[in-house]
């Protein structure tokens, strides 16, 4: 910013421009139905990313974003709010937005586990599900305020996750992966044979209500009629903001440093007092807690959940989002989640092949860009600090 340049656009203007561009692009993408138009938008989006990568705009852009971090966070919230307003009556689009917001929370949790600490978890969809079933049961069997189901869903996921702690700590690498895979399969079978939880057919989930505000029915304010999903998107956004800033603060603290140290070199770190087991437990618990909280709200938004919503395949999708976005990078997670959720939903042609395409994409990424779309930068401890 303080180096002389031919023409200097101030950083904040850059960021606002970027946000406006993103909002318009997403609005166009979300509102189009024709497969041809969607293909064009996807190609255009890809081109822009590619051009940006090659042009000299990129360093300026990343400088502008880095220098205006708080502004960028607010702009991202504003983009979601603008899209919600634009699609206020469109159930389907709002449901997609809500799904993205909650998926991001799950992948942020996975990021703490795998991205920061290197603890592998192939069962995050199960913890997402534990949150979901917790809220289904709490809302139908007790008269607790529904909002409480969110933290309790997180706590249940974290507590059930502690069963896995011993094997995850004792074994390393492939064995820990196998243990979590086995857990995912067991969880599915447990749900299917358990009649109290609805068995294979699943259970209905009552909707959220907050101080008289019922999330289950459409909102009417004056002449304005809005989809009931608007409420879920707003609450999901609040949840995401909390989760995002929580994960950010973990990263930018001695805790984040300790988690990284455990991932990179357990033995050397131990020689400097880093308590390896403590940090693996912390990371695993935090990640499962976030999955559980997100799952609790997701279940209410779906209104009906079954074992098929929380399969091993879903865990793989969460993992592939993390790999695509950039392991360790919170903004990468946000972008990759949007892409992975939206593209197969809008571009129906690939719906059937989506697992195939994800796996191909993940393989390509691992070969050509192993650190993801947005690789993680070295840690700074305060916003805007020079690297």
């Amino acid at each position: 910013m303080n180096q002389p340049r031919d023409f200097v656009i101030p950083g904040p203007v850059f960021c606002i421009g970027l946000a406006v561009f993103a909002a318009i692009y997403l609005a166009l993408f979300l509102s189009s139905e024709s497969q041809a138009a969607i293909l064009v938008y996807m190609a255009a989006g890809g081109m822009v990313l590619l051009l940006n990568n090659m042009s000299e705009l990129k360093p300026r852009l990343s400088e502008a974003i880095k220098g205006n971090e708080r502004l960028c966070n607010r702009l991202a919230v504003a983009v979601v709010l603008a899209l919600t307003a634009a699609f206020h009556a469109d159930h389907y689009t709002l449901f997609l937005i809500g799904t993205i917001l909650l998926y991001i929370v799950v992948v942020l949790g996975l990021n703490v586990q795998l991205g920061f600490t290197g603890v592998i978890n192939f069962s995050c969809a199960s913890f997402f599900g534990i949150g979901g079933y917790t809220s289904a049961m709490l809302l139908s069997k007790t008269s607790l305020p529904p909002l409480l189901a969110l933290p309790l869903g997180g706590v249940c996921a974290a507590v059930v996750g502690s069963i896995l702690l011993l094997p995850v700590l004792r074994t390393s690498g492939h064995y820990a992966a196998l243990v979590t895979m086995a857990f995912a399969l067991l969880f599915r079978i447990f749900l299917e044979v358990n009649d109290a939880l609805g068995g294979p057919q699943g259970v209905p989930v009552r909707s959220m209500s907050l101080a008289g505000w019922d999330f289950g029915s459409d909102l009417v304010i004056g002449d304005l009629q809005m989809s009931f999903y608007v409420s879920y998107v707003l609450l999901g956004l609040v949840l995401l903001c909390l989760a995002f800033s929580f994960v950010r603060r973990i990263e930018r603290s001695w805790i984040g440093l300790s988690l990284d140290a455990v991932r990179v070199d357990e033995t050397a770190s131990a020689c400097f007092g880093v308590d390896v087991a403590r940090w693996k437990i912390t990371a695993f618990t935090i990640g499962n807690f976030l999955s559980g909280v997100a799952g609790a709200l997701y279940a209410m938004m779906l209104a009906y959940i079954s074992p098929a919503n929380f399969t091993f395949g879903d865990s793989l999708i969460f993992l592939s989002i993390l790999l695509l976005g950039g392991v360790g990078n919170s903004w990468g997670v946000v972008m990759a989640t949007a892409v992975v959720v939206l593209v197969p939903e809008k571009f129906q042609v690939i719906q059937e092949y989506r697992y195939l395409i994800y796996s191909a994409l993940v393989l390509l990424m691992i070969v050509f860009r192993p650190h993801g779309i947005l690789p993680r930068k070295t840690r700074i401890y305060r916003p805007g600090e020079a690297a």
Partner: protein
Amino acid sequence: MSERILDCTALTKRFGGLAALNALDIHVDRGEVLGLVGPNGSGKTTFFNVITGIYRPTSGVVTFQGRDISGLPPQRVYHSGIARTFQRSRLCLELSIFDNIMIGNHKRLDLGLWNNIFRRSRFEAQYEEGMERAARLLSALNPDLVARMFRPVGDLPMIDRRRIEICRALVGRPSLLLLDEPSAGMTHDETRQLMDEILNMGSYSDGLTIVLIEHEMNVIRRVTDRCVVLNFGQKLFEGVYDDVVANPVVQEAYLGKDVE
């Protein structure tokens, strides 16, 4: 001046049938620089690994500052005041210079969830203090690095990586510093420079005691007060440098394996 800071008696470490350390008696006096030499595979690194708790000794006792530390986990050994570097530099290459140094400062960091996440003012005070410490250490070794504190260590040349390893070991103000071949991967001039810097660092941590594993006999001659020669996990000889090189048994052990 002859207070024993570290005292190992009958220290033995077996890997299967191989005795990497065999009934070893070694002591280190406070404030001295002890050279640890010996042919490849003679057990020098294993000695460090056993002291720092990476391996449990098969038998024998390690006493550090009057306390029995044999078999303690590495974290406890670190907290008791021993820090080390690794033969093959083991920094976290993708982490920044500052991060790497702060890992060594673990004993001073407040690791509570509450203070780190919610009471940021507490964290920031510690952070400022950490920055100061890291800058002070770095400016004694290579002032250029102070301005590049948030660059990944992987971008740096070998000598700077070694310097950062030394900062990481010293930042916690240990009483005993274990250096495992700090010259590996560097030229003679760089080695000389680095050793001078390390000796000057002694003033950072008052009364620093050093055990130095080194193949470069020049370095051993210049910096050590006393040497221990290992061979097949046993103590072959102990004495000042001039006696070591003059000793026929030592010469034979070296000439038999590889010539220095």
